């Protein structure tokens, strides 16, 4: 039961990363792929009226973790106090910039909100990337299951670590590049005209860079957590994750090479979701690794709620998920098709 809940919570998180990751990516590239005010509105319309639907996956993930792994949420959120508020403020600014820009048809007004939009999305990609790096590297967890950490200490990934060190910074860099590539792949599918052409060019370059960075952080992970590879190899789901990532990469590359935009985008989604999923399989069952002493580490069994709570949650979660999947079908059909540079052809902005 506990392992199943680890998989479910992990699933919600990777779905969020894939769904909102494309918005982060499109946001980071906003100024590069869209040059005129009309093109900029086109990118915003491509992200469209669904950003809040995407963010619900994050809210659902948070609520689910609170319900099934309350001690994990308590320890991690309190420990990352300031970093989490930075993420929250960026999420607020990102949402506001999307909603406010369209209300006044004025170049300066929209230019300002485009700036906020780019800034918030870039910071979000980097912060979520650093968070992923932290999950792999571990945190200075004390014997009582709590920790608090600085933004950075001596940039070494052992002992009293900070949020940022050379390892988590490289993971953050990888995340930013990979999500930008994901966003470019999405914009290629979703737009036409100049934005489409520029996005397609960016997608190939960024995916190549992301592949190189992935190789680097894989090697780095082996250095930072030498115990992890041997541990992961015993987990069949880790192998499954590797197969998924490989299949996703093949789909993506073939889609990019043959200009099949939907295929590339599907591959891109699977890759962006598959990489953190594989990472989650690798660290299982430890959810918070202690950089101070291995015996302080918290496993998923240490942080789980009582068996009855888990069993009850297993009743309603599938129903909620089935509904969410049904809405997904409806909105995918509703917002299918490309966004043109002509205003309002999706009925948005």
């Amino acid at each position, binding site marked *: 039961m506990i392992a199943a809940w680890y998989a479910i919570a992990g699933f919600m998180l990777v779905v969020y990363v894939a769904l909102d990751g494309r918005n982060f990516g499109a946001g980071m590239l906003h100024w590069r792929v869209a040059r005129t005010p009309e093109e900029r509105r086109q990118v915003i319309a491509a992200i469209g009226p669904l950003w809040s639907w995407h963010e*619900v996956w994050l*809210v659902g993930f948070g609520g689910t973790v609170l319900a*099934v792994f309350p001690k994990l*949420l308590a320890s991690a959120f309190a420990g990352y106090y300031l970093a*989490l508020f930075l993420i929250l403020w960026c999420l607020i600014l990102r949402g506001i910039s999307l*909603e406010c820009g369209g209300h006044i048809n004025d170049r300066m007004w929209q230019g300002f909100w485009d700036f906020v939009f780019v800034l918030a999305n870039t910071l979000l990609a980097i912060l979520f990337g650093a968070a992923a790096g932290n999950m792999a590297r571990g945190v200075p967890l004390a014997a009582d299951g709590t920790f608090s950490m600085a933004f950075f200490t001596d940039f070494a990934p052992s002992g009293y670590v900070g949020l940022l060190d050379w390892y988590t910074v490289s993971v953050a860099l990888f995340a930013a590049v990979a999500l930008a590539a994901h966003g470019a792949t999405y914009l290629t599918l979703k737009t036409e005209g100049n934005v489409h052409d520029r996005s397609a060019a960016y997608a190939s370059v960024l995916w190549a860079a992301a592949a190189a960075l992935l190789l680097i952080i894989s090697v780095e992970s082996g250095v930072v957590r030498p115990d992890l590879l041997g541990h992961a190899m015993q987990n069949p789901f880790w192998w499954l994750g590797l197969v998924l990532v490989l299949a996703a990469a093949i789909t993506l590359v073939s889609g990019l090479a043959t200009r099949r935009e939907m295929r590339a985008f599907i591959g891109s989604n699977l890759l962006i979701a598959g990489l953190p999923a594989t990472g989650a399989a690798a660290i299982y069952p430890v959810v918070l690794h202690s950089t101070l002493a291995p015996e302080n580490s918290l496993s998923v069994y240490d942080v789980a709620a009582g068996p009855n709570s888990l069993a009850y949650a297993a009743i309603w979660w599938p129903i*909620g998920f089935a509904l969410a999947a049904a809405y997904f079908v409806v909105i995918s059909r509703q917002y299918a098709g490309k966004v043109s540079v002509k205003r309002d052809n999706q009925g948005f902005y």
Partner: protein
Amino acid sequence: MNSFSDPGFWSRIQFAFTLIYHYLFPQLTMGLVWFLVYWKWCALRTRDEKYNRAARFWAKIFGLNFAVGVVTGIPMEFQFGTNWAGFSKYAGGVIGQTLAMEAMFAFFLESAFIGALIWGEKRLGPRLHFLAALGVALGSWISGYFIIVTNAFMQLPTGYRIEADGSLGIDSLSAYLLNPWGWVQFSHNQMAALVTGSFVVAAAGAFYTLRGLHLEQAKIYLRSGTVMGLISSMLVAFPTGDQQAKMVGNHQPVTLAAMEGRFVGGPMAGVAMIGQPNVAAGRLDNPIEIPGALSFLAYGHFGSYVLGLEDFPQEAWPDNIELLYYSFHLMITLGTIFIILMAYAAMQYLRGRLESSRGLLWVLMLAFPFPYIANTLGWMTAELGRQPWLVYGLYRTSEGYSKVVSVGDMVFTLIGFVGLYFVLGLLFLVLIGREISHGPADVLPAELEREASA
């Protein structure tokens, strides 16, 4: 307690501030959304374009409120972990269930159809557009229910069990979800949200009528707002408010005593119309009371014995009796004024004089902030009254905050929120002001387009 160096105090202030600010927006959307559903339904039935125009105008106001509600709502959930780690660890297995269910059953529904409601009219056609409005309405009320059940558990814990490690887990999901406190509080709260929605709609109608603009639209707003305002204002007081007070009297008698500033217990307990609690002296200063009213309202007989604060040990008292007392009494006063105002407006409507009573229109226009104040006071009564408990009778607020976070960090993030929300509030007012000054379209957008292209 409550000193500058107490992290529990700062976590409470931060949660209270972000929550009160956040709830300014959902209370309007939860009330307003039924007006949208109603007008879309009228448009569907009568084929009269004026109802679509009304829905289109208010959908823009709704959209702005919805967006600010979304972005200010996300920090609420995260603060359970960041600021209330002790509480999350203790009760997460219970309260996390409803917070997750809110996302799964309410937010997915709401956010999937909000775009369709605000921008999808042309593509969806009248029937589907009505359904989109209904979907958003249901989603927002379901979301309210899950939040209120979560709060009801903190007020009156039901359906829980104590696990081996001392934390709480679910014992019976139905007992947790069907908490009697939850149903009463939900009805009371949703009626109060309808009051806010009605007053805002009526205020816009009054404004346009006084200016002599968009008169056909203004009439719809004034009339819908007045009728719904009268119904919901009465329902807030009776039966929902009355039931809520009985709930408090039965399950939190010390809270009831504090709400009424009642230090000494006894039969024939009165309701204070005027009076100031003097906690140090243990009495209500300059009271003017209706004798027996509290006994009757809380327990059904004028002679019923109502406990006073002195019947309880001082560590069981809510920790801010004055604020609790003022919040409760001001809420009741405002609620009474709402009924009187809306009853008068409804009478003028029946006499056909609603649009011509300039004095009344001025009052209706200026009255819209007060339901926001009353809603806020109601939540302050609920939350201050629950003190000193985080989960009533089980877990104290002083145990719940995050021990690893320093006071400085908390003050820093609080100031961050104050600054960010100030800017957000200005932005919101500017954009709402623009929408109000543009007003509802008097002609169809399609007609405008045709004119523009001609």
